[in-house]
């Protein structure tokens, strides 16, 4: 089901968490609310779920006004950052909770729980308690619990924030596959731009309680509306007063080639990529090269190079 939040404002005391925010989420899409901490993304998610009440504005789920509905009547699946497992219940009873509240027949609950535990690969852990699970397993349990009630929309608040990098990457890919299988409208809150770009169909960039930009991941990465969005979405460097992506810089050691003359200051190798710190006209900038290109150029600190911005036009942004 689609979600529509229009003109939502939420204040906590003197702090404005959401300032007249409007966000539309299409049926069946996976939308990321992306922003730094304090940008209002989690508050917006909680307002959609009914866990926070907006001071003004309207929230519609599936076309019906849900602004005044308590969370228990919105039929949303919510996954908390720290999973909020029911500690006194086994994994199976955690997953069954929503169904037992709805007083479904025992046999049906059992079958559905089994099915969900298989979906999240926890069938062997049904009788364990949350304290006996790893972070990633708890995360998947929380997801199964939220999915059990066949929610209209699935809301995930920094779902991978508390996991280590490796598990986070695996779960991210798995979530994307899961979404492609289930097609449930999903909103994921994250502060990690890579995560948002990887899993989402649409990204809503938020800053200071307002929407900065909305679009497909590639679209907002290539065409950021302002300097802040560009900086937030990926690495940037400054070439003759223009903000550009360091991977759009081309280096050449041919003295005759065109481009800005620069001196290599230092090199940092990170596996396949090499970061080259440069100085041109007394200004510092850096370029991101693949390591094989850096090797072919045989760059050394102190070497003279020419720097050129690749691509159709330089990304100039008025600051």
């Amino acid at each position, binding site marked *: 089901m689609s979600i529509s939040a229009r003109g939502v404002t939420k204040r906590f005391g003197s702090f404005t968490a959401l300032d007249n925010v409007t966000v539309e989420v299409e049926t069946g899409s996976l939308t990321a609310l992306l922003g730094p901490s304090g940008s209002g993304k989690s508050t917006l998610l909680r307002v959609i779920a009914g866990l926070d009440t907006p001071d003004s504005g309207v929230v519609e789920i599936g076309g019906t006004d849900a602004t005044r509905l308590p969370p*228990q009547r919105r039929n949303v699946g919510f996954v908390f950052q720290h999973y*909020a497992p029911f500690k006194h219940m086994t994994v199976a009873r955690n997953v069954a*909770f929503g169904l037992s509240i709805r007083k479904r027949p025992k046999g049906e609950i059992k079958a559905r729980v089994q099915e969900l535990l298989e979906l999240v690969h926890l069938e062997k852990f049904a009788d364990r308690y949350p304290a006996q699970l790893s972070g990633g397993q708890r995360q998947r349990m929380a997801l199964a619990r939220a999915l059990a009630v066949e929610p209209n929309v699935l809301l995930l608040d920094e779902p991978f924030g508390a996991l280590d990098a490796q598990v986070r990457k695996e779960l991210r890919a798995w979530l994307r596959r899961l979404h492609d299988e289930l097609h449930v409208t999903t909103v994921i809150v994250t502060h990690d731009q890579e995560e948002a770009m990887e899993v989402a169909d649409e990204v809503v960039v938020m800053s200071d309680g307002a929407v900065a930009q909305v679009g497909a991941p590639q679209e907002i990465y290539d065409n950021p509306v302002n300097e802040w969005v560009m900086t937030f979405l990926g690495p940037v460097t400054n070439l003759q007063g223009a903000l550009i992506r360091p991977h759009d810089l081309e280096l050449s050691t041919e003295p005759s080639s065109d481009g800005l003359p620069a001196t290599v200051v230092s090199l940092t190798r990170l596996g396949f990529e090499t970061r080259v710190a440069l100085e041109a006209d007394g200004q510092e900038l850096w370029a991101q090269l693949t390591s094989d290109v850096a090797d072919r150029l045989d760059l050394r600190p102190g070497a003279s190079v020419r720097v050129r911005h690749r691509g159709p036009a330089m990304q100039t942004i008025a600051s």
Partner: protein
Amino acid sequence: MADSTPQSGSRVTRYSIRFVVLAYLLVLLVLPLILVLRRTFEHGINPVFTALTSSEAAHAFQVTAIVAGVAVIANTIFGVGAALLLVRHRFPGRRLLDAVIDLPVAVSPVVVGLALTLIYGSREPVGGWLTRHGIQIIFSLPGMVVATIFVGLPLVVRAVAPVLEEIGDEQEQAAYTLGSSPWQTFTRITLPSIRGALAYGVVLALARSLGEYGAVAVVSGRVVGQTQTITLFVEERFDNFDQASAYSAAFALAVLAVISLLVARRLRPAGTAR
């Protein structure tokens, strides 16, 4: 460890502190209990049995059971409610409520008893109105229950509130998003999460209620066979030189207290871990 603290002075200090603490406990706590025990059984078990099964003693036990029972039930309900209010809600006067809950610890039970008499005494406005409508509070069970509730008031709240604070409200919010009503959330999520701490608080409140003397002494009127609790019974028998009964009942009270404390100790770790 003794080698790592070579100064003999500190060792002497440590031992002397230990000695003082143990001696203190011995003289004030253990010795009196042993003496009560000895006095109780100085003529064997039969006089104790006789004393405890006399109709007056039996009645006093019954009154204590009723008063303590009702007071504990009331304090359990109020305690959980007040703890939820204090931890989960922000409202004007919250800090005042927080402070007032501890008042019974600070105020002498005798003062509590006198205060209740001033409100509910048959010559006071409120008490007079109630008396005219056939409800007697002072010199009867209701007053004794109210007095006992008052002295046990903070125990459940103070046992439950820190655990509520610690578990946070995310589990409750998760339950709401899964369709659970406030009452279902309370019975299925909140209550099981605090059950250890709650049981601990209830046992403490029960022990306190069983042993209450001062407030009850004032409001009960000490009518033998009617409003006499077991603590009042001990005192009355003692004053009437019936030491066998007094010591037997005192012994019974002490046993109940020790059992309560043992139960409370067992519940304590569960209360903090969950």
